[in-house]
């Protein structure tokens, strides 16, 4: 009963924000360039602005791109959103999986043995402290504007989060479980597989949500620097022409995707935490923080891009 009330409250707050935006769009008449309001209203976003996204459709499936002399159509706009989302998602998922794997393995290595700790712990702590967004130009110079470069950039950003999260989560596993497993005859590998991993998962979950948020930041950030496709690339081109409405619309699309990925993480992790006491009243507390990240990153990256 109270979960229904809280859900209704959440929907109400969202509706309130949407209405406030609409009111602001009427009250604020400033424009970035003539004809481009700083605060575009919903009536504009879902019609004119959405149609304009067909600019980013390169042609195919019987719908000609703008560059090929085609008209701006809703079909083109839908295809543009889908194809650019697909490219961004591939970079995101590849980087996320690679980064999560590397981060967790490195994090486990810190507790595995004295030698693996020496090899991994200090380099891990050093790499962790590099400011992620400042590394974008470096990755661009190293790898060019390739899929590999963007994937590795996302993987780096995600790996350091998973590394820190894993080191911390392993440290908080009660030693009594490890001792119990060893007196029952479990090998070290088996202790990691059957004790450390399941015991640390609830603690790691916040790092997973954080990592997914950073993955979205990183993938959009990587695309700012001159990717030929992707949602981040649409934002950066829109910025050159002062298309606030397109930037905002793409931001909304990113927000929806981020929310979907958080929901997916929750869904996937539920069977892995079913054993926990009181596991049926959990709140995805990190969602709000992490979704904001891509937007907050925009100005800084925009400036770097202009300097290039």
């Amino acid at each position, binding site marked *: 009963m109270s979960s229904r009330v809280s859900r209704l409250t959440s929907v109400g707050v969202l509706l309130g924000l949407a209405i406030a935006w609409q009111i602001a769009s009427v009250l604020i008449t400033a424009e970035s360039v003539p004809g481009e309001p700083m605060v575009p209203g919903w009536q504009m976003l879902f019609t004119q602005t959405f149609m304009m996204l067909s600019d980013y459709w390169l042609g195919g499936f019987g719908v000609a791109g703008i560059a090929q002399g085609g008209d701006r159509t809703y079909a083109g706009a839908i295809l543009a959103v889908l194809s650019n989302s697909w490219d961004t998602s591939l970079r995101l998922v590849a980087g996320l999986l690679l980064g999560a794997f590397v981060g967790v393995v490195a994090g486990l290595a810190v507790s595995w043995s004295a030698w693996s700790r020496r090899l991994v712990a200090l380099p891990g702590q050093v790499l962790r402290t590099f400011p992620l967004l400042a590394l974008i130009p470096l990755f661009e110079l190293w790898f060019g504007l390739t899929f590999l470069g963007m994937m590795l950039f996302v993987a780096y950003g995600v790996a350091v989060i998973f590394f820190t999260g894993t080191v911390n989560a392993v440290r908080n596993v009660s030693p*009594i*479980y490890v*001792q*119990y*497993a*060893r*007196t*029952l*005859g*479990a*090998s070290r590998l*088996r202790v990691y597989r*059957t*004790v450390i991993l*399941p*015991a640390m998962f609830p603690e790691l979950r916040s790092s997973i949500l954080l990592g997914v948020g950073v993955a979205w930041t990183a993938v959009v950030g990587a695309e700012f620097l001159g990717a030929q496709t992707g949602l981040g690339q649409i934002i950066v081109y829109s910025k050159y022409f002062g298309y606030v409405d397109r930037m905002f619309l793409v931001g909304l699309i990113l927000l929806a995707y981020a929310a979907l990925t958080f929901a997916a993480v929750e869904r996937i992790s539920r069977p892995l935490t*079913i*054993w*926990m*006491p009181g596991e049926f009243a959990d709140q995805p507390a990190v969602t709000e923080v992490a979704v904001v990240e891509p937007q907050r990153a925009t100005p800084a990256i925009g400036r770097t891009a202009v300097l290039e």
Partner: protein
Amino acid sequence: MASGVSTAAGLRLDHVSRTFRRSGGDLVRAVDDVSIDIPAQQFVCLIGPSGCGKSTLLQMLAGLQPINSGEISMGGQPIAGPSPERGLVFQRDSVFPWMRVIDNAVYGLASRGVDKQTRLATARHYLGLVGLAQWERSWPRELSGGMLKRVAVATVFANAPKVLLLDEPFGALDYVTRLQLQRVLLNLWGESRPTVVFVTHDVDEALLMSDRILVMKGGRVVDDRQVSLARPRVVESLALAEAVAHKEALLLHLGLQDLVDERLARV
């Protein structure tokens, strides 16, 4: 199934010591030159005031703490590190909360590569003996503290250890649950007869369960008492002359001089 067949092995402690460095920097001899011989199948209780080194000694027997000097051997072989041959029941809850009861019970057997049919049958046998046959699909969070202890006991017995080590296993339980679990443990012990080292601070518990009581104080074994009370023992057994004599001596060791004086004055 291991029922009726004993695989017990004796323990031999030869001038065993363990030294800690306190956070202040001074050295503490937690276990100080202890030499004991425990024959196979004997049920030994280790008793003493808190801080006397009994838990440290048990952890060393389990292979979870290093031995600074001396040697511990089991069945003539020196021990090194933890082994499924020396099962341990902890004071705190050690049952894995992320595994169902049955998966906990088969854990040791699975770790040792016992095939699935055999390990399930063995685990079910012991879950039945501790009275948890109906609970094998439950999660540990659905079980009470006493039931969790039963799971731990069944898990360790399913692993057929040669030596069973228990570190104040029932200390945190209420009186009735404790008596029930003592009965459960004695029944299981009677079935496969491993050698048992049972750490406790409860004099009555020691008298009800053990063949022999070792008293530790300041890291040393200061008394070694044979308990020859007939089994099965019941609460009334504690009123027998032998039990009373043991109890008086043990209470003295535990520092209850006044209580014993008072009782003697009344006699």
